[in-house]
């Protein structure tokens, strides 16, 4: 009965309810949209970092992180390394052998990052196939290179052209070779897109004179939330005088900081938004009480307890808030879905700032349902807190005075 009463009371002053519902709708709509864009952007950054650079967790030889040279590579057939692939949370582990080289083609030269890798594994990891602009991904035993888009543009290369590479290999051996271009790829990571050249692991070991060696293992986890656990487990099972285990957060503290700083700005905006909306909600509750005082007086007089009286008002605000919040989520969903499929492309100075950081200036919205539930929860909590005010009024209500107007 109290529920029925509360529900009907909502429709009693339609204008007031509409205002409240609209303001909650707006708050949830805006908050969810903003957070989805924000978290989507962070998610994309993190994802590219994880996929193209470090993995969720990276294992490399001790000393490599500070001095990324081939001499700091490690033997792949070390039995200790089995611990990585045997860890139940590890979904993929990709060996990579990386080194800088001077490339040339025609009379141009350019410094590039040469990455030896397993094409089949990295295709799954980096989702390479759809990014290939022309040609086809090399096989594990091929002797050819996949060139990043910008490198190919610089040299005006086409598939089938030949490139020459010169570098210093493992223990100072001199490395030189020429390879045909088997494909041109567009990396979403702008740093890679500027300077990466990929070739098969076997050929890389051959080129750098580093038989059976790698510079890093990029570890991808099934559940990224298990990252700290996996770091601890791997650190425990590997000889830490030989190896170093790093999460992407350790590997890229600037990224973590940038995300936190940016996130804090967004949270301040949301706080202001919620403050404005809370005042609005409080105002409508004040109106509601004023309208209802006489009726409260009658009900209290005929013997309705104060707790029941308050329960009706409480349910009323909960229902109103819920309607606004649910409508807000329903309303924002198509928009978020749209921006998830068609990431928003930034232009102007903001885009340049992001480009400078090495990221693509596109914002795909996050579809994480916890964003919607979080903001629904926030408005619910706000409305529950506001409902304490009527509790206070009803507790002090005097049946005679309440009926005096």
């Amino acid at each position, binding site marked *: *009965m109290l529920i029925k*009463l509360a529900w*009907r*009371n909502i*429709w*009693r002053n339609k204008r007031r309810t509409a205002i409240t519902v609209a303001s909650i709708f707006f708050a949830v709509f805006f908050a969810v949209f903003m957070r989805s864009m924000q978290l989507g952007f962070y998610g994309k950054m993190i994802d590219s970092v994880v996929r193209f650079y470090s993995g969720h967790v990276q294992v490399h030889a001790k000393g490599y992180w500070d001095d990324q040279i081939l001499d700091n590579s490690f033997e792949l057939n070390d039995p200790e390394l089995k611990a990585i692939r045997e860890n139940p949370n590890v979904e993929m582990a990709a060996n990579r052998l990386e080194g800088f080289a001077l490339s040339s083609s025609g009379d141009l030269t350019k410094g590039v990052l040469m990455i030896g890798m397993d094409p089949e594994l990295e295709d799954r990891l980096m989702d390479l196939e759809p990014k290939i602009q022309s040609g086809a991904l090399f096989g594990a035993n091929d002797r050819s290179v996949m060139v990043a888009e910008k490198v190919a543009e610089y040299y005006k290369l086409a598939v089938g052209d030949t490139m020459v590479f010169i570098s210093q290999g493992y223990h100072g051996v001199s490395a030189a070779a020429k390879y045909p271009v088997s494909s041109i790829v567009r990396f979403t990571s702008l740093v890679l897109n500027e300077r990466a050249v990929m070739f098969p692991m076997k050929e890389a070991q051959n080129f750098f004179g580093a038989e059976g060696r790698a510079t890093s293992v990029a570890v991808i986890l099934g559940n990224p939330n298990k990252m700290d656990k996996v770091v601890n487990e791997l650190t425990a099972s590997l000889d830490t005088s030989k190896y170093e285990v790093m999460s992407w957060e350790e590997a890229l503290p600037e990224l973590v900081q940038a995300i936190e700083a940016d996130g804090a700005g967004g949270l301040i905006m949301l706080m202001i938004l919620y403050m404005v909306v809370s005042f609005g909600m409080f105002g409508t509750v004040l109106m509601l009480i004023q309208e209802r005082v*006489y*009726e409260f007086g*009658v*009900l*209290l*007089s*005929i*013997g*309705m*307890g*104060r707790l*029941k009286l308050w329960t009706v008002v409480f349910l009323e605000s909960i229902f109103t808030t819920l309607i606004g919040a649910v409508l807000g989520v329903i309303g924002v969903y198509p928009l978020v879905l749209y921006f998830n499929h068609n990431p928003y492309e930034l232009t102007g100075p903001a885009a340049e700032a992001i480009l400078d950081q090495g990221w693509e200036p596109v914002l795909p919205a996050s579809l994480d349902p916890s964003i919607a539930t979080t903001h629904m929860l926030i408005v619910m909590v706000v409305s529950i807190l506001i409902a304490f005010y009527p509790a206070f009024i009803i507790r002090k209500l005097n*049946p*005679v005075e309440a*009926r005096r107007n």
Partner: protein
Amino acid sequence: MSAVIKTNNLQKYYNPGESLEVRALDGVTLEIERGEFTAIVGPSGSGKTTLLNIIGGLDHETAGTATIGDTTITALSDNELIDFRLNNIGFVFQAYNLIPVLTAQENVEFIMLLQNKSKEERQRRTAELLKEVGLGDKMNSRPMEMSGGQQQRVAVARALASKPQFVLADEPTANLDSQSTSDLLDIMAELNQKENVTFLFSTHDQRVIDRARRVITLEDGKIISDEKR
């Protein structure tokens, strides 16, 4: 016969001891027996509402006692009084008695819900009472869809639904036209006769006073006459 209501030297002073002291009740002692149909009359400001509020457990006295049945209500706390009112006193106020979002039926049923009566009893009694006040066909109407007189009749039905010891009505006809007034009085008188419901009401209206079987007249917070007819 046993007294339903007893007051003993009931006093209510506003702003006591100050120059603006108002003696709204100044020593009221009375007894109301079961089955009475009694009007409290007197000029405006004579203390009628104050008296009914204290007897109804809605307001506190300055001195004296009020007893309903065996309970000295002037000794109860505010929260005890809420429960006491629910189970012992039926109220009809001057206007806007009903919950606007509930139908006539739901308004009557509501008080029995507060009393945790069974659904079966609630429905039976609601139908019975609405029929008795002549609104058997208005069960599903909301207050807005009813006239002032009909609303007051629903309020009477609601007041009786809780099976109170008596019904208090502070100027129940003040907002009604003469036809509605006479209809409401007919219904109250009939319930009083047939079911022995005790009514205590205040009024300014001579036609209402004429229907009462006992008239207590207040002036300046004192009983100046008490006549039974």
